[in-house]
């Protein structure tokens, strides 16, 4: 008899599987943060401490002045807290929807689990609880320092905020499970996967963008916080007894409201799991069948003559077009262009000064978009050996891929720049220049740091290279700043441009040598 017989036969408990899930989550997170390289854990710990200190300093800078003066539950405070709560909740909902969808579709260990004698109902119940905890934890990392600073300066009653976060995490997960299952039943696994992933991304960005749009429409300014300070909104807000303020009042330490909120959140999560968990296994089986569904492609029956570069460009565009999830992930940054587009529409023919704000947004979006597309085209190449074994010089392959990226970026960004050109030709010219250098920089960084990865890991592309991720972000931001300053006629654009060129030169100098 094996020495392991007893522990294994006892091991199908919820607690055991819960530990297993949390261990996987932890290792997955560490692997993501360290790019899967061993020996980096001490660096990760140091970065985590530095991040915690930094975000506490930021929280101190933002809320300590109010906290020291004492915070009272007036309409403006309740409005700000509720708005912040909605922001946190939209992020949680986004993350929960993505995690729940992945729980049904990721094949990693589901075949093993479903072929084991363990109860699928229990297994998935644990998995959903783990998702709720992970969802809460990640938002707590961002919101926790604000709670700590408030508690330090205005009393421990603010620690109740952690309870509110837990209740919101449970609510967001319950909602995500219910929505995903209902979509599964009504739309089928194939559509659910796509819609759920897109909706989760839109929800994540939606509140921030919605607040900006509302701020633009109500005040013509460009700040997501502006809306909460608007006199109209404060005047229209319900009275202090309204249910709408309960989460905010619970976060301020009102015990009864916190207890009700926690009971409601955790109770709803338990109810949703109890109602739906019986069918979790069936949904996973249905989702796995989706992978084997054939997709017939209508259209051409003839080969088209084309140069090698054209063949490569066309392939990149077809692959992107046929992967709606990837396209939605790539184009998600374009959502952030909605508020500036609205500002453009509002200011058309009026105050051209407001249009200056468009320049950095467009330039930054194009840099990020180009970086994402370049990663897909170069690092996310599904058949690297096939392309490398073709009688085509590597430089020609890279050139074709760069062209594919630049054209895709142009298709998305050009309409905005053209619209801008009608209102302000000089600003549009600066924006076009900024778009070109920002997109070129984002693309080149991804080429310098190219590695081999699966396209499906696009949402984690930052793990391929931290340096590339940071350099791409810095380059986009600084080119955006350069373009904004240039559009405003400031000489300071020169030094900022020099700074970004130095960063690019430094990034090029430390690029990894490509293996021969």
């Amino acid at each position, binding site marked *: 008899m094996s020495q392991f017989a007893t522990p294994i036969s006892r091991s199908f408990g919820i607690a055991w599987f819960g530990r297993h899930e949390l261990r996987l989550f932890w290792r997955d997170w560490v692997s993501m943060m360290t790019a899967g390289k061993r020996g980096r854990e001490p660096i990760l710990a140091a970065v985590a401490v530095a991040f915690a200190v930094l975000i506490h300093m930021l929280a101190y800078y933002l809320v300590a002045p109010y906290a020291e003066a004492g915070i009272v539950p007036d309409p403006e405070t309740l409005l700000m807290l509720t708005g912040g709560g909605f922001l946190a909740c939209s992020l949680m909902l986004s993350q929960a929807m993505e995690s729940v969808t992945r729980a049904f579709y990721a094949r990693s260990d589901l075949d093993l689990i479903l072929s084991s004698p363990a109860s699928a109902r229990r297994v998935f119940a644990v998995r959903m609880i783990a998702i709720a905890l992970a969802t809460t934890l990640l938002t707590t990392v961002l919101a926790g320092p604000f709670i700590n600073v408030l508690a330090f300066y205005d009393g421990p009653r603010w620690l109740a905020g952690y309870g509110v976060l837990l209740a919101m995490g449970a609510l967001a997960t319950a909602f995500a499970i219910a929505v995903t299952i209902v979509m599964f039943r009504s739309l089928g696994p194939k559509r659910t996967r796509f819609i759920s992933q897109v909706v989760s991304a839109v929800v994540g960005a939606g509140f921030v963008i919605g607040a900006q749009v509302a701020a633009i429409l109500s005040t013509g300014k460009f700040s997501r916080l502006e809306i909460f300070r608007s006199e109209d909104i404060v005047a229209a807000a319900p009275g202090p007894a309204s249910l709408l303020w309960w989460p905010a009042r619970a976060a301020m330490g009102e015990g009864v409201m916190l207890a009700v909120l926690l009971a409601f959140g955790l109770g709803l999560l338990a109810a949703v799991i109890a109602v739906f968990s019986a069918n979790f296994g069936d949904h996973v089986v249905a989702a796995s069948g989706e*992978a*084997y*569904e*054939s*997709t*017939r*492609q*209508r259209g051409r*029956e*003839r*080969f*088209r*003559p*084309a*140069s*090698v570069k*054209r*063949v*490569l460009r066309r*392939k990149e565009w*077809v*692959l992107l077009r*046929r*992967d709606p999830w990837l396209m939605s992930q790539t184009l998600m940054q374009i959502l952030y262009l909605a508020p500036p587009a609205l500002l453009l529409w509002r200011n058309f023919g009026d105050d051209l000064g407001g249009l200056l704000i468009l320049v950095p947004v467009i330039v930054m979006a194009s840099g990020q978009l180009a970086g994402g597309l370049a990663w897909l085209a170069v690092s996310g190449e*599904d*058949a*690297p*050996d*096939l*392309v*490398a*074994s*073709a*009688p*085509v*010089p590597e430089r020609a392959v890279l050139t074709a891929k760069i062209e594919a990226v630049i054209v895709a970026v142009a298709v998305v960004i050009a309409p905005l720049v053209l619209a801008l050109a009608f209102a302000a030709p000089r600003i549009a010219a600066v924006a076009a220049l900024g778009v070109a250098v920002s997109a070129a920089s984002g693309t080149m960084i991804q080429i310098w740091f190219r590695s081999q990865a699966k396209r499906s890991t696009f949402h984690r592309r930052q793990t391929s290279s931290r340096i590339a991720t940071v350099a791409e972000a810095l380059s986009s931001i600084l080119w955006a700043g350069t373009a904004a300053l240039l559009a405003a006629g400031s000489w300071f654009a020169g030094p900022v441009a020099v700074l970004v060129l130095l960063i690019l030169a430094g990034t090029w100098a430390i690029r990894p040598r490509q293996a*021969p």
Partner: protein
Amino acid sequence: MDPSTPALELRGLVKKFVRPAVDGLDLTVRTGEFYALLGPNGAGKTTTLRIVAGLLKPDAGQVSVLGIDALANPVAAKRDIAWVADEPMIYEKLTPFEFLEFVAGLWSIPAEIAEARARELIGWLGLEPHAHERCQSFSKGMRQKVALAGALVHEPRLLILDEPLTGLDAGSARQVKELLSERVRNGVSVILTTHILEVAERMAGRIGVIDKGRLIAEGTLEELRSRAGHAGGSLEDVFLELVARENDAA
């Protein structure tokens, strides 16, 4: 080109990773020959073939493909080579028809010629019902057939196959073997690695056994049998004997 020019000639090939993967390898594949390269796991077979396909650069040595120095002029050498890996290199979102169009485009084959060849290959490999379906739903065997069709659509003169029959069912494996035999009859040279020794035994004109990055034996099956002292024995017996001797000698 002179018909006596070897399809592939490797001289003193060396490639080191942490330790030597290929260690001074000399190997010649004749034009129109079916050559099987056998060896235990980690012997250096795949590394050797990847160097020939231009996917790795050797640390030392020479690679000549149909008389072309493949290290000095890789693009010219690649025109006549096709590489098929054990993991099919295809695009999930393309159909077999589109995949073949893409590969033909990479090798700059005129569209009309490529299309005719593609249709022939699709028919030959039994892919007709799926020619316009995306590869994402295909089994591994079907993906391997698509990859093989991609390798043949530009009519290479040297076909490099690394475990090409992995994942294929018996019927598909037979189709592929017949296709390869037909190509060899038409003058194409094939170099193949496989752990299915029956394939090498039946199809290969000559067999090379590689271990620790070096060629330890080479010849026809009969020649290898005689060298191993296994007259009438199976290739499996011969292979195991040769590798065991090499290990004993080391």
